[in-house]
Structures are given as structure tokens and as C-alpha cells.
């Protein structure tokens, strides 16, 4: 009798905790959706007078003139996307090969501290990267790297023109350094997760470590690495302060990466506090909306790419 009542109590308790758990799960999910939706609605509402005033021209105009209240976002969209692309190409390359080295080749005494150092980079505040970029990296790029690239590959339009120091190129490199830890940390996990059995199978067939890495491990980890890059790209797109400090803040589209440019987040950071007219504030909020949309779009494209390009090659 006693044991029966005890059992009943036990059952009921677990059922109640189940219910709490479910409520928590639904609540958290709902809250998350509500926050994203609320953000979108708020941004849209805030930018309505700008959307009304400029319409589609906001996306195609290159003029950003607070004095005459004429606003166009094209150069900032361009600057945001291109600086992030430079960053992800560099960070992807360095991050993936660095992770491969750390997991498979580096002696343990080197790998642990090195991995720790790289991950420490993720904890450095972005303003520090900005200062470093402005005072150390930009002068070096301006004095050595950019003239070298111009001398060797000057026939490419992206390396032509006057060398400023503050540029799309500089911003891309600073962003790359900032997102390398993300790429590298996730890639390390993904590589480590590529089944040990595949690694052993390859070794047992007489493949060297490099051959195993190149032919088995990296191909097997493509989806995960791609995911890491998408995550890192998200950070690069939204990065504000470091970019602002090194990109040159010029709302213009130039073929050369050595020219100053501007990003969506930077304009907002630069001008929001001193923006007084309603239309000006609204235009700045619309930039925020665009950043939101650009981030979603990049993520979406990345997802579609993962599905269409990577999946069939992988299995089935």
C-alpha cells in the first residue's frame, strides 16, 4: 500500500517536471521567435519614413548626404559584403589548414598552447583589433604588403590605384583575424569528429597523414567546415567598431580593394548619436534593417549551397 502510494507520487512528480520542461522548451523557442520577429518589426517600423521617402532607390543610390537628407545605401552594402568576403576567404584558408595542422600534425606540446592562443583571440574585444589594425597593421600594409601586391599583380583592378592604408583590404584582414578562431575551433572539432575509423582505414591502406587529411578527413568534414565559415561570416558582417577604425569610412564603390569603403554597421555607429532629423534617423535604421536582411540572405545562400552542392557529393 505504502509502496504503491510512493510510486504514484513518483510518477506524478516526473510528469510535472516533464510538463515544466516542455513549457520551458516551448517558452524559450517562442521567445526566440518573438525576439527575431520583434526586431524585424521594430526595424521596419523605424525605417518606414525612409522607405517611404526613397523606396527602392535607397538600395541603388550611392549618395549619402545628411546635409540635404539624400540617402542611399549601395556603397555600404557593397563594403559590408566585400570586406566580409575577403575576411572569410582568408580566415577560411588559414583557419582550416591551421586546424588540420593542430589536430593531425602538431606535436602535443605545441598543439595545446597554440590552440589555446587562437581561441584566446576570440576573447579579445574588437576595439583592440581596431586599434591594432589602425596603428600597426595598416602602416605595414601600406608600406610593404600593398605596394608588393601592386607591383606583382597590379594588372588586376582590385590591386590598382592609390594606397591609403585605411581600406577595404585592411578591414578584410582585421576581420579575418577576428573570425579565424571561430573557423579554427569549429573545424578542429569537426576534423576530430570525422570518424577515427576513416582515418585508420586510410592509414591502413598505406596513405600518409597528408594524403589522409587531403583525401579523407577534409572531404568528410566539408559540411561542418562550411557551417563554421557561415557562422564566422555572420560575425564579420555585423562587426562594427574594428571595421569602422580601419575601413576609411568612405561611402563609395571602387574597383580597388586598396580604396577606403564603408559598411552598414559602421555608418550606424558613426552617425546615429548625432543624427537629429527624423528622416536621417530613419535612414540609419533602414541600414540596420538592410544589415539584418543581408545577414539572413548570406546565411540562406550558404544553407542552399550546403544542400545543393555538398549533400549529393557526400552521401546517397
Amino acid at each position: 500500500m505504502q509502496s504503491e502510494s510512493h510510486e504514484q507520487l513518483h510518477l506524478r512528480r516526473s510528469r510535472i517536471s516533464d510538463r515544466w520542461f516542455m513549457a520551458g522548451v516551448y517558452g524559450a523557442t517562442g521567445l526566440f521567435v518573438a525576439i527575431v520577429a520583434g526586431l524585424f518589426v521594430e526595424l521596419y517600423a523605424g525605417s518606414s519614413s525612409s522607405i517611404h521617402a526613397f523606396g527602392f532607390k535607397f538600395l541603388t543610390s550611392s549618395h549619402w548626404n545628411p546635409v540635404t537628407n539624400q540617402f542611399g545605401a549601395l556603397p555600404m552594402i557593397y563594403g559590408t559584403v566585400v570586406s566580409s568576403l575577403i575576411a572569410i576567404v582568408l580566415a577560411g584558408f588559414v583557419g582550416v589548414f591551421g586546424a588540420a595542422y593542430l589536430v593531425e600534425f602538431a606535436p602535443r606540446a605545441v598543439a595545446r598552447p597554440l590552440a589555446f592562443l587562437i581561441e584566446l583571440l576570440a576573447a579579445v574585444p574588437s576595439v583592440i583589433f581596431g586599434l591594432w589594425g589602425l596603428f600597426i597593421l595598416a602602416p605595414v600594409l601600406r608600406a610593404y604588403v600593398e605596394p608588393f601586391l601592386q607591383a606583382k599583380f597590379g594588372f588586376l583592378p582590385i590591386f590598382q590605384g592609390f594606397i591609403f592604408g585605411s581600406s577595404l583590404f585592411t578591414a578584410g584582414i582585421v576581420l579575418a583575424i577576428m573570425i579565424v578562431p571561430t573557423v579554427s575551433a569549429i573545424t578542429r572539432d569537426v576534423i576530430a569528429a570525422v570518424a577515427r575509423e576513416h582515418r585508420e582505414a586510410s592509414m591502413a591502406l598505406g596513405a600518409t597523414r597528408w594524403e589522409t587529411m587531403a583525401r579523407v578527413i577534409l572531404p568528410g568534414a566539408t559540411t561542418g567546415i562550411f557551417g563554421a565559415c557561415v557562422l564566422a561570416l555572420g560575425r564579420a558582417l555585423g562587426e562594427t567598431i574594428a571595421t569602422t577604425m580601419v575601413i576609411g569610412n568612405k561611402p563609395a564603390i571602387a574597383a580597388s580593394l586598396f580604396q577606403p569603403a564603408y559598411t552598414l554597421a559602421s555608418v550606424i555607429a558613426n552617425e546615429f548619436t548625432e543624427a537629429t532629423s527624423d528622416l536621417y534617423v530613419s535612414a540609419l535604421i533602414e541600414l540596420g534593417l538592410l544589415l539584418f536582411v543581408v545577414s539572413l540572405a548570406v546565411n540562406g545562400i550558404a544553407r542552399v549551397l550546403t544542400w545543393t552542392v555538398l549533400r549529393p557529393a557526400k552521401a546517397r
Partner: protein
Amino acid sequence: MPAPYQFPYLVGGAETLARPASEPRPPSKMATDGLNVFYGQFHAIKHVTLSLPDRRVSALIGPSGCGKSTFLRALNRMHDLTPEARVEGSVTLDGTDIYGPGIDPVEVRHRIGMVFQRANPFPKSIFENVVFGPKVHGERRHRELIEICERSLVKAALWDEVKDRLNSSALGLSGGQQQRLCIARQLAVEPEVILMDEPASALDPLATAKIEDLIFALRRDYAVVIVTHSMQQAARVSDLTSFFLLGEMIETGPTAEVFTHPTDRRTEDYITGRFG
């Protein structure tokens, strides 16, 4: 209950006649001498001296954790991949110490292949799986690769089942087919020794039977070493059996002899099911 073991290959078939115990041992392909393996402080394999004949199947049996897999992995320097593992003593292939100075472990593994407990095909097509090894070793001619693929799959008794879908993913095959694919992949690099680590333990009886047939057929061309926890399997496919316990090799001899007249009490206890 221990009585009804069957020795199908030992009692039947023209070339598989049971040899009398007195027959001289076939020439040794690989041999270990005083082999020790440590994992950090743990002494996993203790002074094992064993000869593994060419063109025969040698089975390593024993309870879980007895060190049989560890021993197997020492035979093709697989422990090189585990930083905390240490190997002492000698392992020879045709008389050459594979742990000796100037020996390339990659070349060792090229000549001594391995098939693992869980089928581990790469997430690639069937064709790419089979020709992975030859490609790594520099074979680029497509015609040649196609031939190797067919030859290997035929040898692995898989050809008929997959010949129409060589370009579809290996992951779509059944467990037993995947394991035979792994064997085919191994055969494609033309090793001299094939090590098998419980190759059928994850498979159903039908698939297991096919793998066992295959193992037995392989002894025509290769030295085969198989680790198994199944005594029936050892009895069915092997010519020689060695019994491992707590890192030591307790007994070795022709399979029929070890199973019917074990010399050591512990072997007998294990075989009769008193522990393990």
C-alpha cells in the same frame, strides 16, 4: 554444451584437409619476438612471441580486454597514431623488423592491410572506395583503376551485387556489403598480410557467413590474421589459434588441437565457456 563445435573447412574440401599435428609448421610470414605494448603506464601486451604463417588464417581469441586487438594493431604499426602507446620487442615481416630504423611505417601499412570491426567505407562512391589505395599510390590511368576495381570486388565476392551501381555511395550498402567493400578496398592495394579486427562482430548471421567464406578463400593468396571473440568463428575459419588472456599469450597451435586438446587449464576454461 562445449562439444558440438564444427570444423567445416578443416574436415571438408580438397585443399583444406586437416593437417595432422605432427606436420611441420608452414613457413612464417610474420613473427613477433618478446613483443610488449604499453599505453602510458598500462602494460597491455606482455612478452608475446608468436609466428604467423603465410597463406594461412591465424585466429587470435580471448575474452574482452585480453589484448588481442592491441596485439593486432602492433602488427602494422597502427599504434603510431596513438601518442601514448609504446611498443617494445620486434615484429618481423619476411624477417625484417618493421619497427627497425629506416623503416617507413606508411610502406609497412601498404604491405600489411587491416580490416576493422566496424565497416568503415569512406563517404564516397563504391568505385572511389575501392580505388582509393591505388590512387594514393600513384595509379592515375582510369582503365587500370577500373580493372583493379573489378578484380578486387570479384575477389571480395561483392562484384555481382554492386557492378551496376559503382558510382553510388558506399554508405547505401548493407552492413555486410560494406564490410566486404572494405576488404575489397584492402585487396586493391595488394597487401601481403591482411589483419582483421573482429570483422563480422557487427553483422547478422547471413552476412557473417559470407564474410567467413571470404576469409577462408583469402588464405589462398594472403597471410590472414583475425581477431575474434567468437570461438565458433575461430574454429570455422582458422588454421591456427592463439589464446590471449590479460595481455599474455597463453597457448597457440593448430586450431583443431587448441579446441580439442588444450594444454593449458585457462584455455580449456575459456573454450568450455567457464569464463569470457
